[in-house]
């Protein structure tokens, strides 16, 4: 497979591998498009958004305070009918504060995406954040998503896959989102104590175990059984979060007392270890499993290149993964060096997040407030931090290019154009946005537009700009 021209490769580097061109970015990539991307890979991981810097432990304790306030407020309300109490006001303030924190986390992440010069690095981090989905559809998890990405995902995206898997599987955000924190071995000491207290809520929860197998590692077609899921769930019992009075409040703790005693068998392998080591050993084997390499490399190829990527590409990534023991920096470099990834025909349809942020990048700006960003993402079906399930956001064009979504993109583009277009030269902007990917049809439509606003809206609604 021969590679396209340098000009075309520069446009592809910035739009397909990155987050859309900022002014001058395609020019900057022109001398060495692959080198431009490879230089963005670094061992220390992805950039951190400039947010509050609050840790998951901070957030966990804030959420606990909030829950206590809510409880007090309810108790008072029960006593006094519908009368507003002083506590009700505190409760409302706390609720607003928490919601604003989640919004601020999301805005900081979006601003990083609009401002970064290393957009491939950011895309790579976003891919892994979506692979290990946690969602604000759960209240407790919502405040932990920003810290999760900062603590578990971003530092590990160019390291070994096992580190990333363990960081994700032990983070409070994942432990709450997939109900692991409360899971208790039925024959553990904790279960015995709960039974003596006649507390019915003590037992196994298999949610995290199942989704690690199905989504994070070997994949649903790996041939595991319900028994494997249950055994893995037993191995993971004890993975939990420290309570207020304990040593590590709001952080990962292993509760020996909640751990199911005895050895386990998962995917045909025996695990005779005890305690924390047992779950970690299963995770280690899953990370090294060739089925994990195949499943995850297929996802990488689908995310960056095509909804139906060539088998040669997936296999090359898979080989590199197995040769390097899941070294994600090496896999990223192999992706960049694969000729299949440079096909000039753009086939990936930008997700709402990618689409809206690439529009901000085009004008060299960033969203000024969460209110500028959240409504359009929600309207297009990608509500901030709220993927509908542990599978994360869909990747395919069919999901996002629904008739209704195109109408909403158009309406948003019109509004965006009205706010910014009068300051820009549409023809120059088209060249900046798409470089050698600009087609005569789009260039003509833009140059013939009646107004700058119309030209801007046409450009960002063009098939070329909406794809990458």
């Amino acid at each position, binding site marked *: 497979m021969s590679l396209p021209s340098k000009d075309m490769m520069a446009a592809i580097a910035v739009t397909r591998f990155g987050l859309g061109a900022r002014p001058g970015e395609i020019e900057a990539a022109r001398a060495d498009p692959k080198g431009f991307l490879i230089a963005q890979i670094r061992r220390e991981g992805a950039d951190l958004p400039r947010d509050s810097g609050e840790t998951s432990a901070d957030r966990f304790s804030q959420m606990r305070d909030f829950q206590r306030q809510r409880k007090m407020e309810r108790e008072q309300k029960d006593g006094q009918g519908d009368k507003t109490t002083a506590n009700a006001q505190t409760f409302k303030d706390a609720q607003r504060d928490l919601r604003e924190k989640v919004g601020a986390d999301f805005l900081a992440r979006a601003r990083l995406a609009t401002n970064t010069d290393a957009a491939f690095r950011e895309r790579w981090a976003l891919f892994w954040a979506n692979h290990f989905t946690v969602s604000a559809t759960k209240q407790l998890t919502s405040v932990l998503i920003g810290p999760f990405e900062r603590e578990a995902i971003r530092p590990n995206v160019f390291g070994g896959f096992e580190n990333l898997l363990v960081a994700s599987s032990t983070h409070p955000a994942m432990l709450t989102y997939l109900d692991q924190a409360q899971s208790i071995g039925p024959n553990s000491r904790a279960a015995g104590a709960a039974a003596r207290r006649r507390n019915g809520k003590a037992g196994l929860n298999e*949610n995290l175990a199942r989704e690690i197998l199905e989504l994070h590692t070997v994949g649903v077609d790996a041939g595991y059984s319900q028994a494997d899921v249950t055994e893995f769930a037993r191995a993971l019992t004890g993975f939990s979060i420290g309570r207020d009075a304990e040593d590590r409040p709001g952080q990962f703790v292993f509760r020996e007392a909640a751990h199911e005693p005895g050895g386990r068998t998962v995917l045909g392998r025996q695990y005779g270890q005890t305690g924390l080591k047992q779950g970690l050993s299963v995770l280690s084997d899953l990370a090294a499993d060739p089925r994990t390499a195949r499943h995850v490399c297929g996802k990488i190829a689908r995310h960056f290149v095509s909804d139906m990527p060539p088998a040669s590409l997936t296999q090359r990534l898979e080989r590199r993964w197995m040769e390097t023991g899941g070294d994600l920096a090496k896999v990223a470099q192999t992706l960049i060096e694969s000729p299949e990834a440079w096909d000039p025909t753009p086939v990936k349809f930008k997700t709402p997040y990618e689409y809206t942020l690439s529009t901000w990048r085009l004008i060299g700006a960033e969203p000024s407030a969460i209110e500028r960003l959240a409504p359009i993402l929600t309207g297009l079906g990608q509500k901030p931090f709220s993927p509908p399930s542990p599978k994360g956001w*869909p990747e395919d064009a069919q999901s996002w290019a629904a*008739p209704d979504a195109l109408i909403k993109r158009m309406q948003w583009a019109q509004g965006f154009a009205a706010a910014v277009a009068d300051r820009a030269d549409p023809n120059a902007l088209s060249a900046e946005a798409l470089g050698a990917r600009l087609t005569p049809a789009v260039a003509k439509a833009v140059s013939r537009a009646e107004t700058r606003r119309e030209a801007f809206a046409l450009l960002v609604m063009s*098939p070329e700009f909406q794809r990458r």
Partner: protein
Amino acid sequence: MNAHLNRRSLLGLGASLGIGVTFLGTQAFAASEGDLAKKKLVVVICRGGMDGLSVSPPVGDPNYAALRGSIAMKPEDVLNLDATFGLHPELSTVHALALKGEARIAPAIASPDRARSHFEAQDVLETGASGVYGADTGWLNRTLEALAPVREIEGLSVGATAPLILRGKVQAASWSPGKGVDESARLPTLLQDLYKSDPLLGPAFASGLETETMAQQAMTAMAPSPAMNMAAASTPPTAGPGGTSSSMANDRRNRQGGEAARKLGSTLGGFMIQPSGPQIAAISLDGFDTHAGQSGQIATRLSYLDVVLDGLHAGLGTEWKNTVVIVVTEFGRTARVNGTGGTDHGTASTGLILGGALKPGGIVGDWPGLAEKALFENRDTAPTLDMRALFKGALAEHMGVDRALLETKVFPGSETAKPLTGLV
């Protein structure tokens, strides 16, 4: 190009460019097909694995209370259906319809998939295949295809993203609440031109414009509702900080989320009663994956479902008599409560069948009971009814889909799931 094209001339332009303009021309077919041209089918997909034993608690089953432990409902707390079953107290609309013979339950229905994976099971539900990866188009889309030679009818999905059940060769419309299109702008016309050789964006955009026109008609036909927040309507209320919780159950329906849900249902109904409106529609509700703290969560979700159905019933008006609504989920949940006040992924669940077109009757399919020996793999409600049998019955008897095509085109490989008869 004329800067002041109006809607009709825009559509005309679309047609002259060979762009798929939907909804036109359905009337011509309608006249010759008589009653069938009025029949409507709505499929509601509850995603996440809806707990059937909460939808229709079998409070009369001797094993129910013990299996469910802390989350069991008491007989006096459910809306009574018969000696075995009640409905969840939040399903008051469904219950009122059931009392009139316009709603029935299928308490042990399942797809042919047994993997207990959300995504696999949803794929199987939506493709109508006998196993995962058996097809890459949705069975509602193949229904449109199968009907096309005799009746060209439209399909519509509600929501910002396109669900698999309606994906396929026929361009289906999609709609979600939002602001209207400025009809005087040139942009829609210019974009149609720019998309004319784009196989994905061209048809989708034309369909979107058509639906917007219809939405404006559907909305103006109804009373205005200023308090509502349309942007929030397509997703059920979820627990962001300060989201819903069980203590707020009493006023769930009257809060903003409930109003938006009602509007969502009634607007869908408004679409479907228009002369050339869609006869087949799909709508998805999320958030049924209740692994922990199930009682409060499921009450919120079922309330939302009930209000959407209430809105749909109202929006359809007298056309309710021509409608069948099917509510299904990808799988049910474990019969036993788990260690965290919730339930894990299971097998059979409850399906709801509603509509004025329905024949009154008892439960649909058999009830296997909850005795230990009766449970599937000693954990889940055992499936007694393949949901394809229900779908096929509704398509054959209600929508008039040719039976041979039903087997070969819409549900290939479903010989074991004989179409249910006597539904309508």
